[in-house]
């Protein structure tokens, strides 16, 4: 049986059904990200697990115990908030010790655990400081230590990196993942940042309009999105209309060239049009021997992003994005020039719904 289960969860605020029939099973030690745009219900799901909202329907179990009706302070969960939520009147050490003190842990045990937690987050010498004397990243690390100190059964992270600058975000997310793996704690992470979700999660739940559109490993979510929403929300997408030539073999035509889609047999008749999509990195600059088709594109814009160069181009009647790695010996194409683009049917994503 899964460690954390959410079964047919629903949440209704007035006339608004924010979460609709949401079910998810999380294994012990798993890192799950709830990913979706604002208002998709991801934070509400997290808050129901935390006990801050009670479900309108459905149930939640943690380690086999039904916690649906339990108060937040009886669930043994640890939580990190976007706004840090450190207690301003307490020092770093007192903040970390708070949960243990509430539980009635003896002082010696508290002190030892605080020292252990502060060492874990790399702030062993800042125990005597107040939160306002720390940077945002340090405050959030203290919030992590505070959440972990009472040894919670589940760690909930509510967009904890959103208020931090880009560099600190990356380093802190890696630290969170490393500590999570070290402690083997079951974690649910809410974010609207796909890169964040993909880089640290075992599985991602892409939410849309209160339902889970797709649940899967980051590789699967990115490369095999099941719905048009997931395909559009996760990563950049180039969409094309292709004409079905042979549904049984998955053969389609794009700008007069034949391509074989991976989803054969196709649920369409010969001559019908299908919407398909390609990631920017699946459009490869130049003539490649293993490519199924070779098309000419006109470059309309060039964005140099360091290791990657993103080109905007007109290809087969569609405006597309195309990613290529930077090579110091090859300057990027200039705007207005024509380039050859190689593509293969196996990289196409067939868009449904």
């Amino acid at each position, binding site marked *: 049986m899964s460690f954390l289960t959410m079964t047919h969860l629903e949440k209704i605020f007035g006339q608004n059904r924010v979460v609709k029939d949401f079910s998810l099973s999380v294994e012990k030690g798993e890192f799950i990200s709830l990913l979706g745009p604002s208002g998709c219900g991801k934070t509400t799901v997290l808050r129901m697990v935390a006990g801050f909202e009670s479900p309108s329907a459905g149930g939640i179990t943690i380690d086999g115990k039904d916690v649906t009706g339990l108060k937040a302070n009886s669930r043994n969960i640890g939580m990190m908030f976007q706004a840090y939520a450190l207690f301003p*009147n307490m020092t770093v050490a007192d903040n970390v010790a708070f949960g243990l003190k509430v539980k009635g842990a003896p002082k010696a045990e508290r002190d030892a655990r605080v020292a252990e937690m502060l060492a874990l987050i790399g702030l062993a010498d800042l125990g005597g400081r107040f939160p306002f004397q720390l940077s945002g990243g340090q405050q959030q690390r203290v919030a992590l230590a505070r959440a972990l100190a009472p040894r919670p059964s589940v760690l909930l992270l509510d967009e904890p990196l959103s208020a931090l600058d880009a560099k600190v975000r990356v380093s802190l997310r890696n630290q969170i993942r490393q500590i999570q793996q070290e402690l083997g704690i079951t974690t649910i992470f809410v974010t609207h940042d796909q890169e964040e979700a993909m880089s640290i999660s075992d599985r991602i739940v892409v939410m849309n309009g209160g339902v889970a559109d797709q649940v899967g490993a980051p590789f699967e979510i990115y490369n095999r999105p099941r719905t048009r929403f997931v395909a559009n929300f996760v990563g950049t997408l180039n969409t094309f209309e292709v004409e079905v030539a042979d549904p049984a073999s998955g053969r389609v035509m794009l700008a007069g060239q034949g391509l074989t889609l991976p989803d054969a047999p196709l649920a369409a008749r010969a001559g019908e049009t299908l919407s398909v999509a390609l990631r920017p990195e699946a459009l490869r600059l130049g003539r490649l021997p293993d490519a199924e088709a070779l098309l000419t594109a006109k470059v309309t814009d060039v964005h140099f992003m360091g290791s990657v160069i993103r080109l905007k181009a007109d290809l087969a009647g569609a405006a597309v994005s195309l990613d290529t790695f930077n090579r110091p010996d090859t300057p990027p194409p200039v705007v207005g020039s024509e380039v050859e683009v190689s593509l293969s049917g196996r990289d196409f994503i067939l868009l449904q719904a």
Partner: protein
Amino acid sequence: MTRFFAWGAFLFGCLYFLLPLVGMTEFSLKMRRGEYSFDAYRRVFEDQRFWDTFSYSLILSAATIVVGVLLVVPTAYWVRLKLPQARPVIEFITLLPLVIPAIVIVFGYIRLYNTSSFLPLTGSALGTDILLTMGYTTLALPYMYRSVDTGLRTIDVTTLTEAAQSLGAGWITILARIILPNVMVAVLSGAFLTLAIVLGEFTMAALLNRPAFGPFMQLLGANRAYEPPALAVIAFAITWGCMGLMQLVTRFSKHERAKA
């Protein structure tokens, strides 16, 4: 030119407020004919009634502050956390003591809690003291509520509460260990205002016939010439002392500096 008028307005304001105080202080020092002295102050301090009424009012101030904090902090916290839609109603209620005269409130109390009522509080000294404390709490309510509400505005009440709950804390722990320490300066500011109100209050104490500082000041003012201004200067000194204490507390409260 603008600077000149600004300084002019400032100086006018200073004169407007300071001249009566200077005049009053000077008059309080003129008890001895032809020279300045502290005779009026000495007479006030030598009067046992001063110490009796002052200590009585101080005790009732402390009781009023305790009742006010116990009433206002949880109420303001709960309204911010769970009933934000009720805020205008609560604010209106807390403003009522400013528009309802103290005499009306105290007559209401006497009518409700007299010796022939279901709760005969006026039948004993302790009962009347309790009634007077409740009356003072009502009078101080607008100031205490506003102070605490302003203090609560400076912290993220909801997130701090949820963070504490996620760590296993119950409501009393949250209020006592998270909310109250973080609004302590606001509570103190409300407390000092309460102290000032209680020390100067006349109507309720006089009509409930209690030996408070307000009626003593009135009595002295009606019968003496030099002692009343001396008493007024003492009362001012106490109030300013309280304000100074407020500033000190803010300065020494380390985490409060983060909000500044």
